[in-house]
C-alpha cells in the first residue's frame, strides 16, 4: 500500500477517535466513561498534531492531557463522590433541548463563517523550521516572557489548589 494512502487511513482513524470520544465524553451519564471518552478525543487530537508537523506537541498532548489532566479528573471522581451520588448522576441529563439548540446554533453560525471565508496565506507560509531545536530556542529567547509566565501561573495554581483543599480547621479558619 502506498505511503500516502496509509497516512490518509490513519488520518480518518484519528478523526473517528475524536468524534467518538467527544460524543462519549459529553453524552455518557457515567462519569468514568466520560473521562475515558475525553482521553480518547485527546489521543486523536495528538494524532492530528502529527499531521500538523509537530511531533513534540503530539507527545506533550499525550503527556499533559491524557496523562495528567485525565488522571486528575479520575481522582476527582473517585475521591469526591460517594457511590450513591454516582448512581444519582447516572439518571440522565438535564436541559437537553436548550443545550442542543445552543450548540447547533453555534455550529451553524461558525460553519457559515467557515464556508464563506477565503483564507489568505501570509508570505512564506508553510515553510520555516518547525524542529524541536527551533522551538526551544524561541522559548528561551523571543518567547521567554511567555515561558516564565506560564511557569508562574502553574506554580500559583498548584499552591492555590492545595490551599483550597486544605481543611484549615486547625488554624481557626471556617
Amino acid at each position, binding site marked *: 500500500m502506498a505511503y500516502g494512502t496509509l497516512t*490518509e487511513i490513519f488520518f480518518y482513524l484519528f478523526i473517528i477517535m*475524536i468524534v467518538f470520544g*467527544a*460524543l462519549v*465524553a*459529553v*453524552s455518557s*451519564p457515567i*462519569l468514568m466513561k*466520560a473521562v475515558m471518552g*475525553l482521553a480518547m478525543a*485527546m489521543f486523536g*487530537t495528538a494524532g*492530528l*498534531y502529527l499531521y*500538523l508537523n509537530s511531533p513534540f*506537541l503530539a507527545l*506533550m498532548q499525550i503527556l499533559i*492531557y491524557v496523562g495528567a*489532566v485525565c488522571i*486528575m*479528573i479520575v*481522582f*476527582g*471522581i473517585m475521591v*469526591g*463522590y460517594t457511590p450513591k*451520588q454516582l448512581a444519582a*448522576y447516572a439518571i*440522565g*441529563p*438535564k*436541559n437537553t433541548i436548550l*443545550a442542543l439548540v*445552543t*450548540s447547533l446554533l*453555534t*455550529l451553524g453560525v*461558525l460553519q457559515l463563517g*467557515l464556508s464563506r471565508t477565503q*483564507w489568505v*496565506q*501570509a*508570505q*512564506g*507560509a508553510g515553510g*520555516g523550521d*518547525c524542529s524541536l531545536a527551533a*522551538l526551544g530556542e524561541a522559548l528561551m529567547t523571543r*518567547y521567554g516572557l*511567555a515561558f516564565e509566565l*506560564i511557569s508562574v501561573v*502553574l506554580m500559583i*495554581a*498548584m499552591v*492555590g*489548589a492545595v490551599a*483550597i*483543599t486544605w*481543611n484549615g480547621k486547625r488554624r481557626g479558619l471556617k
Partner: protein
Amino acid sequence: MISCNLNTYLIIAVFMLCLGLYGMMQHRSMIGMLISIELILNGAGLNFMAFNRFLAPDPVVGQIFTLFIMGLAAAEAAIAVSLIFAVYRKYQTSDPEQISDLRG
C-alpha cells in the same frame, strides 16, 4: 488529501467546541462540566496549530501558543478539582443546581 486541507482541521475544532458547549449545559455534575471545558480548550489548541501550519510563516508561534493553552488547561483542571472538593465539603453535594446560596 484531506489531511492537507485547512478546513478539515477547522471543522473538527468547531465540532469539539460545540460538543463541549452541549456537554457543559446538559451534564448533571461539576466534573462532567469540567470534562466539557477540557474538550473546548482542546479544540482551541487544534485551531491555533492548524492556522499556524497553513497560513503563518513562522511555525514556532503556534506551537508555543498551544503549549501555553495546555499549561493553562492543566492549571485550570487542578484548581477546578480542588474547588469541587471544597464545595462538596461545604454543601455535601456536587449538583450545580443545588449550590445556589452565597455567603453560606
